[in-house]
């Protein structure tokens, strides 16, 4: 990104963009406090899952006018689900730069050893539930002392992994108007039960109490893991790991996969020259998003994804095939509270400390309480949840 900024500055002598890196753990806090004091930068990055809260707080400038303006971007060059992610009450509040979808990383060496290969001897990643279970079983190898030496699969990020499987089972999270949380439904319970079964019944994934999941994959002790495209750079540094990427297998009747996006957002009070300059920079980054992709990202715009250069990035392009059907987290201004409740339910179920239905019921009750509180505080101002 820094190289892109430098090049932009060189090509546009009338504009100077200064970049500041920040740790994600504290970025939103700092951004929020800066925004409160009116000291936010002109341009900043907000994840799709957090767009609702920033838009509602009035920190973001809408960009529908700029998209359709002279220096605009063709909306046909954006996937509808991705563009919808930055919408709040009918307006759009950022330009998605990438889609960091989750995908399946698999260890090619372990696949070959287990004989899961096609006629040419190339490892053949599973694409549906049957193939996935079969592969996971064949890739789980018992070791001494009853503990497998090698696991077929591992849950890395519970939230994104299980959210995906729930969506694939057709599970809904809210009523269409977002007035009620319905996470405890038959589809989600079945999906969560399937995940628990991978650990407890089929024993093809390690229990979460005592396993460092992603490290396990990197050490070659795990054959398959679902992780975001942003983990690619991490793996590419490791020369002794023979891995590749594929779309997440379809476990249920629906195709779905978790994703989030980095969106380029503008401070709400921008106008005049500053606004024009900022937008020019945003458009430059979007137009050149293939450079961003090279570092382990997937560009939002199909025109960029269809280019030969992107097609050569094998893992990125494999993951990118999922973009048209990616699912973002629910559109909530109180997304972090939702994530706490949802994450806790998954944790309890995976650890076998509650049944999937019981765990999801607790989450559902708590989230409905949050909705009620939020409605009381915001609905009167016309700032309720935007479905």
């Amino acid at each position, binding site marked *: 990104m820094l190289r892109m900024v430098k090049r932009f500055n060189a090509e546009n002598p009338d504009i100077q963009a200064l970049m500041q890196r920040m740790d994600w753990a504290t970025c939103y806090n700092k951004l929020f406090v800066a925004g409160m004091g009116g000291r936010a930068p002109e341009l900043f990055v907000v994840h799709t899952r957090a767009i609702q809260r920033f838009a509602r707080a009035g920190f973001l400038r809408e960009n529908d006018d700029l998209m359709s303006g002279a220096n605009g971007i063709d909306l046909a060059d954006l996937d509808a689900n991705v563009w919808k992610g930055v919408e709040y009450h009918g307006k759009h509040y950022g330009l998605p730069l990438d889609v960091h979808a989750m995908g399946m990383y698999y260890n090619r060496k372990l696949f070959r050893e287990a004989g899961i290969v096609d006629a040419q001897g190339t490892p053949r990643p599973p694409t549906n539930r049957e193939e996935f279970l079969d592969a996971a079983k064949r890739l789980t190898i018992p070791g001494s002392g009853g503990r497998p030496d090698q696991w077929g699969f591992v849950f890395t990020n519970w939230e994104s992994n299980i959210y995906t499987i729930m969506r694939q089972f057709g599970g809904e999270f809210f009523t269409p108007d977002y007035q009620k949380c319905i996470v405890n439904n038959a589809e989600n319970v079945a999906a969560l039960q399937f995940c628990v079964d991978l650990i407890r019944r089929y024993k093809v994934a390690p229990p979460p*109490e*005592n*396993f460092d999941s992603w490290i396990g994959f990197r050490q070659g002790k795990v054959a398959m893991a679902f992780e975001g495209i942003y983990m690619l750079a991490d793996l590419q540094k490791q020369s002794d790991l023979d891995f590749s990427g594929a779309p997440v297998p379809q476990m249920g009747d629906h195709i779905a996969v978790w994703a989030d996006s980095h969106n380029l957002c503008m401070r709400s009070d921008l106008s005049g020259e500053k606004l024009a300059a900022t937008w020019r920079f945003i458009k430059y980054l979007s137009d050149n998003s293939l450079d961003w992709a090279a570092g382990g990202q997937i560009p939002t715009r199909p025109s960029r994804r269809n280019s030969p250069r992107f097609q050569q990035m094998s893992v990125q392009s494999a993951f990118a095939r999922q973009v048209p059907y990616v699912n973002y987290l629910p559109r909530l*201004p109180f997304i972090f*509270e939702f994530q706490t409740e949802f994450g806790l339910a998954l944790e*309890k179920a995976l650890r076998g400390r509650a049944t999937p239905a019981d765990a999801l019921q607790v989450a559902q009750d708590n989230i409905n309480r949050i909705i009620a509180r939020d409605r009381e505080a915001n609905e009167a101002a016309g*700032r309720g949840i935007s479905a």
Partner: protein
Amino acid sequence: MTSRRNLSRYTGYFFALPYLILFTGFVLLPLFYGLTLSLFRWEMLSPLPAQFVGIANFQEAFHDNYFWQALGTTLRFVLLAMPPTIGLALLIAAGLRAAPTKRQSFYRAAYFLPTIMTISVAGILWRWFYNSEFGLFNAFLAPAGVKIPWITDVRWAMPSIVLMTLWWTIGGPMMALLAGLQNIPISYYEAASIDGAKPGTQFWRITLPLLRPVLLFVVVLNVIGSVQVFGQVYMITRGGPELSTRTLVQYIYETAFNNYRMGYAAALSWLLFVLIALFSFIQFRLMREQ
């Protein structure tokens, strides 16, 4: 003469002034600002201005399971961490007192060293130590075929935090207790020995009673510090697994800076403040009675 005496009456305040200014600006004023805030519903995510809600935030806390859970976790931490910290600090101090001066200063520095480390560094360090796959501790245990889920199991997580805290904080109480021990004249022990008192008796009859003021001081400080535990938990477990190590301060932090519910967070902070004040009051009363 009189004016001079009047002046000297205020000299003390003059010397205290720099601190008083800082104390007022950075402690007292925020404290009361927080109290005001705790009576408002102010959510930074909402475009609405802050709204006066009376004691509604406090009422919410009393019905908030997460508040009670965090409070329980905090008290559990205090009960698990304070006795071994003080006990071990006293043991080390007693041992150091008996050591020759040169060696004593070396060990004193060694035991105090972890305390000067910032919590972020110490926390990251211990998170690696505790890693169940390739952590230092499990590497030591591997030959015995033991693998402990230090921070990933609900039963182990809190004791692991306590163990790390022990290592990190033992230096302070140890120093204070050592100073206290050194203030007890050697001649008392000599007289006791002549009278035939065994070391154990000497400890219970001489050391402990004379050390009491220092001991109480150390206990009070330790409890106040423990109730506010945050850094090590946040760095090592983030409050997990299953929120089993989420303490009150972390809950307040998350309420304020993840969920931006400032009024409610201020109310929770004030409840914590009352709790600490209560502890301190009881302990200082005990101290005065002695």
